[in-house]
């Protein structure tokens, strides 16, 4: 099976629970289990090839421009992790089916679980570090959902937030680190990076890259000082803890370190950072685990400790240590997943996970007891179980270090000692001792479905311990070879002779037993000792960041719009001035055009209208009239300077805008009062003048200079006819060359109209609806609401303007015109009808819903664009031809016309929907609906005359 498909399967599986959950949780679980099993089998089929030392790859180009490709690989390391993820995933899916109660939303759980599984598979199968980052972030997100699965529990939500914050921040650091790494290596493919060890380690950017990548790995794998999120994530349901925190997510960091071991490892920096962090984490985790009361907390800190152990081994940087690390990853996954599941069983059956309230479960839960004993003894490192083997190897490596040997040996032995202590405590304080009569539930062994998973893992624990080479040797060899890049052959054996490692092991076991016997006084002194609480520190930092964020936001935005806008204006001015005085604009080369008398009059009018508009802006109706003058001059400006399309658009938009503003003004105050002081107005005028001078100056500077680079317009002028089949270059750019932009723009226009509609909808409900019902109009109403002249004239004009609209639409491709202008012209023609006889009257006489018009427009444009696919061309490539119909001149038909039709429909729909909204507000405010088209009924008068 292709590696890409293996990575994809869990994501497909994530869709199934939602579809199947109505059929019951067993069906959902079976569907997920089947998908996982198929993926697992697909992976295992690659074993023979991997054993031969081959690397199976699948390469799919995704975003080749930024080297983000969906490249996947299967080598020994991917095989090891993939088997763990899918294998344990299968057990967890079964276990969760029995663990979750009927009230839990099971479909959601399985969806999250499969998403997480897919993300993990993506990480371990990626052959591209950018792709790996994508999956890395996906694990953070999906684990957030899983940890917070019980949304009603504050612990769950807080634990999820904390996990996301810590691992998410680490992920961000890692993105930076991976970018640097890819830049040094010149490729983002892991295969290439693995080959450029010398380049990378010689680069001066090696250390920053190393630290940033390790931040990602350490946060994910809960290494000191980021270990604190893991215990808090234990608020998750136990299947989640067992999956995420024993076998998969926390191992992602280890996986990454192992994956990049050949290129990043082996340097003194790597040794000191990674090995020391691992050592400290191993010790701290083990010590805290001994004193925790919650079973899952014990396991959480024990996991932290074991992750530290593996990190330390990877940090040693030797090939033997890498073998030991890989072997311990397998062993830890087996016994820890089993222990997590049994902790869940105890919680489920006895009703508590508090060790103080447990004890004496041996006879009551014999099966669970047997599983726990074997798994915990393995965790303690007691022979002949698998935990013993890898722990021996760890101690052996520590005792053979070349630097700081004694330090590592001592601390590792102490950590092992505590590890023995908490492992034995898990057995003895929970299962032995006198039976009690105050368990929250009467404990008994669970059904087969629940203990089958842990039991299977325990069997593996024993078998790997007894026959390490047969059971795990091949996998260790394959994955260790993938880590080190050389052919590795592990010598796994129970008995290595009497060496330092064995003595350290014996000290640890003896010390651990003594420690457990003295547990009570030790616990007392532990609890009385002052120690920093990571959670408190974390909360303080979060709190401080939130407060700082609020403070900054508040200082920048104190709710005053003029303040914010003047800051914005001044900053833009400053940036512009800076650019002007530091850059080089070159000399003014273009000669000035001569000024004729008419343009000069136009300029005078515009200046006069602008000045009076500012002066009279408090008289709002007058301001509207004056602003319309500026708009008209703008259209004339476009006409004069060879832009007929723009002039047509500007003038029609002007009409619509003024009508809209007038209608809105009907409900707004008609005058603005003076509320500002004279100095304040003076200051604002200063800012405005500066902005005007700056903007005008910039404009002048541009107008007097030639293009610094060749414009792309030449291409468009040249190819407008050849490729787009149109003579009007502006229109061809809109519907063809830059059709995608236009497609986006009509969509935005449609969205704007829908937003207006939605806004109106909320205004017609609640408080504002009542206000509108009691609205008192502050203007005298006209006596003649629907004047006869207007009605008659608009009726006469309607067909003419519709024909004009059609004409403008059809000629658009070759002459000034097109969908935008035609849409506006038709919208104005319709608007006139609505104004003449009232909105409701006109609305009753047509039944096109304007929403549908907008939708149809976007769809028409989109479908036209898609049509190009069928010709094997990219989206929105146009085709055209000439048609001859009888009695008509030969004319052109281009697919761009379909696109332009979409533009047309969208514009008409948007304008009319905006108007419709205002009219609905007016109706709410008591505007009545007239039954006749106009106030004077001509037919009645005719009758009366007879």
């Amino acid at each position: 099976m292709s590696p890409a498909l293996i990575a994809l399967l869990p994501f497909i599986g994530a869709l199934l629970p939602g579809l199947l959950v109505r059929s019951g949780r067993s069906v959902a679980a079976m569907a997920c289990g089947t998908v996982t099993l198929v993926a697992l089998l697909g992976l295992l089929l690659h074993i023979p090839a991997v054993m031969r030392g081959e690397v199976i790859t699948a390469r799919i180009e995704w975003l080749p421009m930024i080297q983000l490709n969906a490249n996947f690989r299967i080598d020994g390391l991917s095989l090891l992790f993939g088997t763990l993820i899918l294998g344990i995933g299968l057990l967890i899916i079964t276990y969760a089916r029995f663990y979750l109660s009927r009230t839990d939303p099971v479909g959601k759980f399985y969806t999250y679980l499969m998403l997480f599984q897919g993300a993990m598979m993506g990480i371990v199968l990626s052959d591209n570090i950018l792709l790996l980052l994508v999956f890395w972030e996906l694990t953070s997100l999906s684990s957030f959902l899983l940890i917070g699965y019980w949304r009603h529990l504050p612990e769950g939500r807080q634990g999820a937030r904390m996990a996301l914050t810590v691992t998410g921040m680490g992920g961000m650091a890692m993105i930076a680190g991976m970018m640097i790494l890819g830049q040094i290596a010149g490729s983002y493919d892991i295969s290439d990076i693995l080959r450029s060890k010398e380049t990378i380690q010689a680069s001066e950017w090696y250390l920053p890259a190393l630290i940033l990548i390790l931040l990602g790995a350490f946060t994910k794998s809960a290494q000191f000082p980021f270990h604190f999120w893991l215990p808090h994530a234990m608020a998750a349901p136990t299947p989640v803890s067992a999956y995420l925190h024993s076998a998969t997510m926390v191992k992602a960091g280890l996986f990454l370190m192992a994956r990049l071991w050949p290129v990043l490892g082996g340097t003194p920096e790597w040794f000191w950072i990674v090995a020391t962090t691992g050592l400290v984490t191993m010790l701290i985790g083990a010590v805290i685990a001994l004193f925790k009361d919650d079973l899952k907390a014990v396991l959480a800190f024990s996991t932290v400790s074991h992750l530290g152990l593996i990190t330390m081994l990877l940090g040693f940087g030797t090939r033997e240590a890498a073998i030991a690390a890989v072997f311990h990853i397998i062993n830890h996954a087996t016994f820890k997943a089993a222990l997590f599941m049994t902790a869940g069983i105890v919680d489920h059956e006895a009703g508590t996970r508090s060790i103080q309230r447990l004890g004496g479960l041996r006879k009551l839960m014999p099966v669970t007891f047997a599983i726990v004993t074997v798994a915990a003894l393995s965790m303690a490192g007691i022979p002949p179980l698998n935990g013993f083997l890898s722990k021996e190897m760890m101690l052996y490596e520590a005792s053979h270090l070349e630097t700081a040997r004694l330090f590592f040996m001592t601390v590792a032995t102490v950590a092992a000692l505590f590890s023995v202590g908490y492992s034995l405590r898990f057995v003895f304080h929970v299962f032995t001792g006198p039976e009690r009569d105050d368990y929250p539930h009467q404990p008994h062994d669970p059904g087969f479905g629940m203990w089958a998973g842990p039991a299977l893992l325990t069997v593996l624990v024993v078998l790997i311990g007894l026959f390490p080479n047969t059971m795990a040797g091949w996998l260790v060899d394959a994955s260790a070879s993938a880590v080190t890049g050389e052919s590795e052959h592990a010598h796994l054996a129970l008995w290595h002779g009497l060496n330092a490692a064995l003595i350290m092991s014996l000290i640890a076991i003896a010390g651990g037993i003594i420690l457990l016997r003295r547990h009570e006084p030790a616990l007392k002194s532990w609890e009385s000792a002052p120690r920093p609480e990571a959670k408190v520190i974390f909360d303080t930092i979060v709190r401080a960041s939130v407060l700082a964020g609020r403070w900054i936001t508040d200082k920048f935005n104190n709710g005053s719009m003029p303040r914010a806008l003047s800051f914005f204006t001044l900053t833009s001015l400053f940036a512009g001035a800076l650019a002007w005085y530091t850059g080089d604009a070159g000399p003014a080369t273009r000669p000035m055009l001569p000024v004729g008398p008419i343009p000069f009059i136009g300029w005078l009018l515009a200046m006069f209208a602008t000045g009076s508009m500012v002066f009279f802006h408090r008289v709002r109706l007058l301001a509207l009239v004056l602003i319309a003058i500026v708009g008209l001059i703008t259209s004339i400006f476009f006409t004069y300077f060879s832009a007929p399309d723009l002039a047509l658009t500007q003038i029609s938009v002007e009409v619509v805008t003024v009508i809209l503003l007038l209608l809105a003004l009907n409900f707004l105050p008609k005058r603005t009062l003076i509320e500002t002081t004279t100095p304040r107005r003076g200051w604002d005028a200063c800012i405005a003048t500066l902005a005007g001078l700056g903007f005008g100056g910039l404009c002048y500077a541009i107008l007097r200079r030639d293009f610094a680079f060749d414009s792309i317009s030449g291409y468009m002028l040249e190819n407008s006819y050849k490729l787009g089949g149109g003579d009007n270059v502006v229109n061809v750019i809109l519907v063809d060359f830059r059709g995608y932009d236009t497609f986006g723009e009509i969509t935005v226009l449609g969205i704007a109209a829908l937003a207006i509609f939605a806004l109106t909808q909320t205004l017609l409900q609640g408080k504002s609806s009542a206000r509108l019902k009691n609205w008192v109009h502050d203007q005298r109403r006209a006596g003649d609401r629907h004047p006869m002249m207007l009605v008659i004239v608009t009726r006469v004009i309607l067909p003419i303007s519709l024909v004009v609209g059609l004409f403008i639409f059809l000629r658009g491709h070759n002459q000034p015109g097109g969908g935008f202008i035609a849409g506006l012209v038709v919208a104005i023609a319709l608007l006139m009808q609505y104004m003449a006889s009232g909105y409701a009257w006109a609305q009753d006489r047509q039944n096109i819903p304007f929403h549908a018009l907008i939708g149809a427009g976007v769809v028409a444009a989109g479908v036209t664009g898609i049509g190009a696919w069928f010709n094997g061309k990219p989206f929105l490539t146009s085709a055209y031809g000439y048609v001859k119909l009888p009695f008509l001149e030969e004319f052109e038909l281009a697919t761009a016309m379909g696109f332009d039709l979409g533009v047309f429909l969208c514009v008409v729909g948007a304008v009319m929907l905006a108007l419709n909204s205002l009219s609905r507000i007016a109706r709410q405010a008591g505007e009545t609906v007239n039954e006749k088209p106009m106030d004077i009924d001509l037919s009645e008068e005719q009758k009366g005359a007879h």
Partner: protein
Amino acid sequence: MELLVASGIGACMAAGIYLILRLRTFAVVLGMTMITYAINTFLFATGRLVVNLPPILHDGDAAAYTDPLPQALVLTAIVISFGMTAVVVMMSLGAFIEGGDDHINMPPDDREMPPLKTIDDRPEEERA
């Protein structure tokens, strides 16, 4: 001519900036409309000013044409700015109807932040 155009655009911009610094919504809407004129004409002018050479091709005519690209950009900009003006007008209208006045600044009451929730996973009873 260039000087006239630049001064006209600058005047529009100055008027627009002055108006958006006012305290009532209607003045701000007017100001934004003025800024729209200024920006659209400015964008158009980046194609340089050319008289009597519209970008309409004629068969076999090799004469110079004006720059069509800024025109195409500005054409959609005009229509989009209409859409945005309509949204802003409706927002100011809604604010006036809902709130009873057309002030642009945020009332002090609306600026109150919710109390910072303690991020604390101790059970309720312990926290008290």
